[in-house]
């Protein structure tokens, strides 16, 4: 179990590289990135690669839906 706040910071750092215009303060952690930031599949792939590098873990494609929101990402990587 990792510290969720540290995970959150790391996820937001990756997110900022994909969507520099994102404002972490107004980001709703429960809402899908696609719905609030117009993430398309290429953005998501870039994001997934960034997470893979940041956390140093393999992420099976079947787990991708768990990473569609900030809250989902935190739960996923904090547990890992």
């Amino acid at each position, binding site marked *: 179990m990792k510290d969720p706040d540290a995970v959150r910071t790391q996820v937001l750092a990756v997110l900022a590289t994909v969507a520099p215009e994102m404002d972490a303060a107004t980001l709703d952690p429960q809402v899908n990135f696609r719905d609030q930031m117009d993430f*398309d599949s290429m953005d998501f792939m*870039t994001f*997934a690669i960034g997470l*893979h590098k940041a956390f140093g873990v393999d992420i099976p494609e079947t787990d991708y839906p768990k990473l569609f929101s900030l809250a989902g990402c935190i739960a996923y990587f904090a547990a890992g």
Partner: protein
Amino acid sequence: MPSLGAGMEAGILAEWLVQPGAKVKRGDLIAVVETQKGAIDVEVFETGTVTRFLVAPGTEVPVGTPLALIDTGAAAPTPAAPAQVAPAPATQRAQVSPAARRRAEELGVDTAKLAAKLGGEVGIADVERAASKAPAAGIRPGMREAIAAAMAQSKREIPHYYLSVQLDFSAALDRLRVLNAALPVPERIVYGVLLVRAVALTVKRFPDFNGYFRNGQFEPSPRANVGVAISLRQGGLVAPALHDVDSKDLTTLMREFMDLVSRVRSGHMRSSEVAEPTITVSSLGEQGVDAVYPIIYPPQVAIVGFGTVVERPWAKDGQVAARRVLTATLAADHRVSDGHRGALFLDHLRKLLVDPERL
């Protein structure tokens, strides 16, 4: 000043990326040009040595204006150069380019802070990125007008016809899932790459959908440069090309596609990508629409739209099963082809997409 899309009459030379005396080869990036589509990195057409700049940063010039003199080693005649042009500043590039500084003033960005933060050079894209973090930057000025002009020209001049086909995309998605399961995260492929490759393979068989209609006649292209419509989060869209898609495997295409999207987002499209699509693909698969009825980008003569992959009851051999179904739509130019050819085109495309081993 290269022509970077239908309707472009002029552009602003924003920044030189090389110095006089630099050796360049065809395809190198030598300048940044500011257009309604955003800042575009310009690739050089010649191989040689840059002898002199003819246009100073910040100057707007018409399409076709020579920007620099390049000594190609051949006994090339030197074009008469306007004498009043200021030489490029010094040997060291300023931390903040003049164009970036101007843009920063427009957008209210503090360039000193930005330079300190980035720890080096500041370009237009950096300034715009910084500005877009401020409240709703909105669509780039002039982009809506540029899109409207190109689409109005298309609707006025191109007699479109539309055909569509529904296809069972399940086998392709299953194959991708198996493929991706064995690949590390950075090498996995999204299905959009299959769509782009299928269109490229189809135009190689049907050249009357691939090329340009210019000066009253159709010029087929020997290359399959597939433009991919990419919507910008600030509003608007661009459709730069993936080059020679027919000759590249899925892994290469995926890498190039991701690289292209990230450069579109950061304002570093290349001139050849903007100027050279021979057909375009528009996929609105992530917005939940069933089908797309796209408008051809002049001077191209065809565009293929893809809707969302949806699970639907699908009858085959007298049995109904749930399958993942995709609708492909072709819009093509009646000055070049007819519905019969279009139907053959779409059928070929469908066959590739339902039988992914062929991709």
